[in-house]
């Protein structure tokens, strides 16, 4: 079977899966007057998310970013082992001054491996590294957090789908701008809606302003950092995006898994995890990247 045929077959398979899934949801909704469907909404959202990821993959399937050869296998293993070992060391070994401030310096590992070696290596580094770290500390296995950590490594790897770093930044800037404009417009047009997490009618106009300010900060940050170095801007922006998506995924999944309130997910998990992670990543990843570029220049690999 040629690659083209193979891809076509896969597209058809997934389209059928999607259609059957939507049909089942519609049928269930019809039979139960839409009420009981809410119980399986998390599964539905997850399935749609997975299909979305797969569509992105299919569209970019020809890109070298997804290639998995011997090099990628070895880097996946090294990345995951490093992330696991650092997680273990910085979490359990008593280094008072370290554990107080730098909660997770190891976060730079999945971001760096994703950014330099591609999304597959990044995802593996984050997900398996987290499993390894939890194994060493004896915490157990938590699929939502493993996937979240995988996303932290995968998102920075998406930079490889672009011809160069500058184009990836342009894409990111436009994406952020469009999302902000659309969200803010929606919220301002209709600020009073039923809160998705509380079920009560709430005013969301505060969030529109928060989005606008956040977006402006991100876009401004891009241009400031880009004046120093394109690599620096790209690794920091994609890394931050990875942390927000990865930790956000895990925290929101915990609303369904552990039954947190939305506030608990944000105050108890998202903010304390994402904040220090972003700070650590923004400081340490560029240092690591600079050291790697120096080695690369010296060895010519």
């Amino acid at each position, binding site marked *: 079977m040629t690659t083209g045929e193979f891809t076509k077959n896969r597209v058809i398979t997934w389209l059928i899966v999607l259609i059957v899934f939507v049909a089942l949801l519609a049928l*269930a909704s019809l039979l139960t007057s839409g009420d*009981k469907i*809410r*119980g*399986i909404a998390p599964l539905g959202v997850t399935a749609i998310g997975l299909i979305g990821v797969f569509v992105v993959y299919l569209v970019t399937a020809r890109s070298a970013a997804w290639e998995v*050869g*011997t*090099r*990628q*296998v070895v*880097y*996946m*293993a090294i990345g995951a*082992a*490093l992330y*696991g*070992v*650092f997680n*273990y*060391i910085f979490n359990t*070994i008593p*280094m008072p*001054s*370290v554990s107080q*401030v*730098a909660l997770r*310096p190891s976060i730079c*590992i999945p971001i760096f491996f994703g950014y330099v070696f591609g999304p597959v290596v990044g995802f593996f580094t984050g997900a*398996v590294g987290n499993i*390894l770290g939890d*194994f*060493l*500390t*004896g*915490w*157990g*296995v*938590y699929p939502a957090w493993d996937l979240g950590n995988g996303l932290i490594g995968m998102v920075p790897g998406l930079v490889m789908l672009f011809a160069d770093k500058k184009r990836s930044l342009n894409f990111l800037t436009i994406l952020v701008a469009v999302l902000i404009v659309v969200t803010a417009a929606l919220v301002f047009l209709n600020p009073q809606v039923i*809160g*998705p*997490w*509380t*079920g009560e009618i709430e005013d969301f106009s505060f969030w529109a302003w928060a989005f606008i300010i956040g977006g402006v900060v991100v876009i401004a940050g891009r241009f400031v950092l880009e004046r120093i170095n394109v690599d620096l801007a790209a690794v920091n922006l994609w890394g931050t995006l990875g942390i927000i998506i990865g930790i956000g995924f895990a925290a929101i999944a915990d*609303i369904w*898994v*552990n*039954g*947190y*309130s939305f*506030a*608990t997910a944000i*105050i*108890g998990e998202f903010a304390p995890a994402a904040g220090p992670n972003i*700070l650590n990543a923004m*400081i*340490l990843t560029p*240092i*690591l990247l600079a*050291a790697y570029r120096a*080695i690369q220049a010296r060895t010519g690999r």
Partner: protein
Amino acid sequence: MLIAWRYRERDTIIQRLDPRARIIFMLAMLFSIIQFWDLRLMLLFLGVAVLQYALARLTWRETRRVWILISIIIVFMTILTFLTGRGGVDYAYHEEHLIHRLGPLSLPIVRWHISLDITAEKTIFALSQLARMYAITIMAITIPYTVNPSLYGVTFRGLGLPDKFAYAMDLAFRFVPTLGRDFTVTLDSQRARGYEVEKLSGGLVAQIRRLAPLLVPVTINAIVGAEDIVDAMDLRAFGVGPRTWVHRLTYRRADYLLIAASVLLFVASTALAFLGLGRLWVPAVLLRLAAG
């Protein structure tokens, strides 16, 4: 630094089971538990989790630290959810019956009024949440102590992960002790140069920056060494044909039974949840209390 796995060889029923069957069971439990809010069902799940934990025969000494940390997190998160409103998503419960209202307390400057409603639903939700989180955690904790790290690659291969990824997993587990040693060597050599990890001074940013002399050499060394491993693997024609594994896993009768039970559990739970059973259960006592 000697990095040791938590795994110990123990001749228990749990350890004699195939790791693939155990992971399937863990996932089936997880995806069944998260479909319910009924405290009685949660206690049932908790019972199953405790049973498998007891069968694994872990000692208090080896798990003490993890229990304490995890209990702090679970209790903290449950209290936070109780204080910040409706837990779960909005379909866990809709109406609430007030038992007692604390406050309102007014904050002097901002003039916010804070009050806390203790309702029948919130209270019982907090209890089921505790049982639910403990059930999930007890299932998850047993794995690192009872699954041999050298079986991970072949286990996930058996669960359908492609050869290359399963092998990468195997390789990652094998790199751990080497990287642990590299870390110690780096720490010692930096100390010999006057680097004091115990006394990181300066602001937050400066303190994080000072971790670079530890992180960077270990990482870059590993990456430089990787090229040799890549060459060695390529020379041995890695990835050309399907792999064979040193360890071979075989399902036995008990494993088939466990997998069948897992599938049954998940299907039954999904069917029950779909029929609307197993939602939050509020005991009549609490409702009477609310009615005064």
